[in-house]
């Protein structure tokens, strides 16, 4: 069924645009144009996080840290191979995408591990970034329960994601 998800979305939007007399050609031009400026602005973040990840792995530090985390994660049904992703997701969205790509090329795109990683990356948000930027105008310092609640709920979502990937 999900094979038809994207075709339905794409055909639907194009037909709806034609019905509303929106210029589809111009929309695609705008999209392609914006994509260039978007990747230009995120390239530094991706490059730096890749350097960091590469060093983290090559030094053997990743091996040690995932060794610590593997038991508790396995207990919750999260494959320990994606421990780094679990840690990075609340901090950096670009970093999460970078790690996801790395996991996909290491374990194969349709493997259980890569599907878990994809589900986690798709279902989560950068908790710390969001809380920093959203309150930038009203100068709120004390977020009380917001961060722990968000982090705990996101983690709960990850556990659910891995359980679902097992059966779906």
């Amino acid at each position, binding site marked *: 069924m*999900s094979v038809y998800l*994207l075709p339905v979305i794409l055909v639907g*939007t194009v037909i*709806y645009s034609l019905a*509303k007399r*929106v210029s*589809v050609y111009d929309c*695609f031009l705008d*999209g392609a144009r*914006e*994509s*260039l400026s*978007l990747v230009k602005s995120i390239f530094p973040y*991706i490059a730096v*996080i*890749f*350097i960091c990840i*590469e*060093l*983290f*792995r*090559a*030094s053997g*530090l990743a091996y040690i840290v995932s060794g610590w985390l593997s038991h508790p994660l396995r207990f919750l049904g999260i494959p320990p191979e994606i421990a780094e992703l679990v840690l990075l997701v609340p901090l950096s969205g670009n970093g999460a*995408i*970078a790690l996801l*790509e790395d996991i*996909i090329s290491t374990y194969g*795109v*349709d493997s259980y591990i890569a*599907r878990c990683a994809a*589900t986690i*990356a798709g*279902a*989560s*948000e950068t908790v710390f970034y*969001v*809380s*920093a930027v*959203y309150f*930038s*105008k*009203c*100068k*709120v*310092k*004390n*977020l*009380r*329960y*917001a961060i722990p*609640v*968000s982090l705990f*709920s996101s983690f*709960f*979502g990850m556990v*659910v*994601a891995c359980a*679902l990937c097992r059966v*779906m």
Partner: protein
Amino acid sequence: MRREVEIEYSMNVAFAALTLLSLVMMTFAAPADMLPSMISGVSGAIVLILKLTAVYAVWLSVLKMAEATGLDRKLSRALRPVIRRLFKGESEKSYDYISVNLASNMLGMGGATTPAAINAMASMCREEGKATDNMLMLLVINATSIQIVPATVIALRAAAGSANAASVFLPTLIATSCATAAGMILARLCAAARSAAEKRKKG
């Protein structure tokens, strides 16, 4: 922009510490691999950036069409009654911002999400520097992600040659819904516990 600076500072500390620790360990374990692995990191980044350029060029076009046909405005109008019940006692202006924020977040329109959220927070703010329970509720909903179609993830899977790139759609939707529901319930409980504690203090 104060908090943004703080976050950047903490990212700076985390990045520097992690990099230094890795570098020191490598100095002992594999000194010759240090520079090659940093460079291969950036090579990986360039490959990914090219892939992302293609992904965004396609997906941003779809979002442009959704925007030009007013799909986002329609969704935000449909969300209005729910928002009114969830965030009690706010002004119409706040409801406007909140509905734009949540609608664009659900559609994955990153560009419209953040400014709407910042304005929503500012308009709900009663006392400078103090976060109300409604503000924290909005934050928790956004921080647990409510995107309907994880477009970037699906496109990356498609680019990697997946047999069914969109197969993660349903698990992602269920997982993110569970996370958001858990966040909303916990935020409510925390708010209730706090106001109960305040009452006890007064009485």
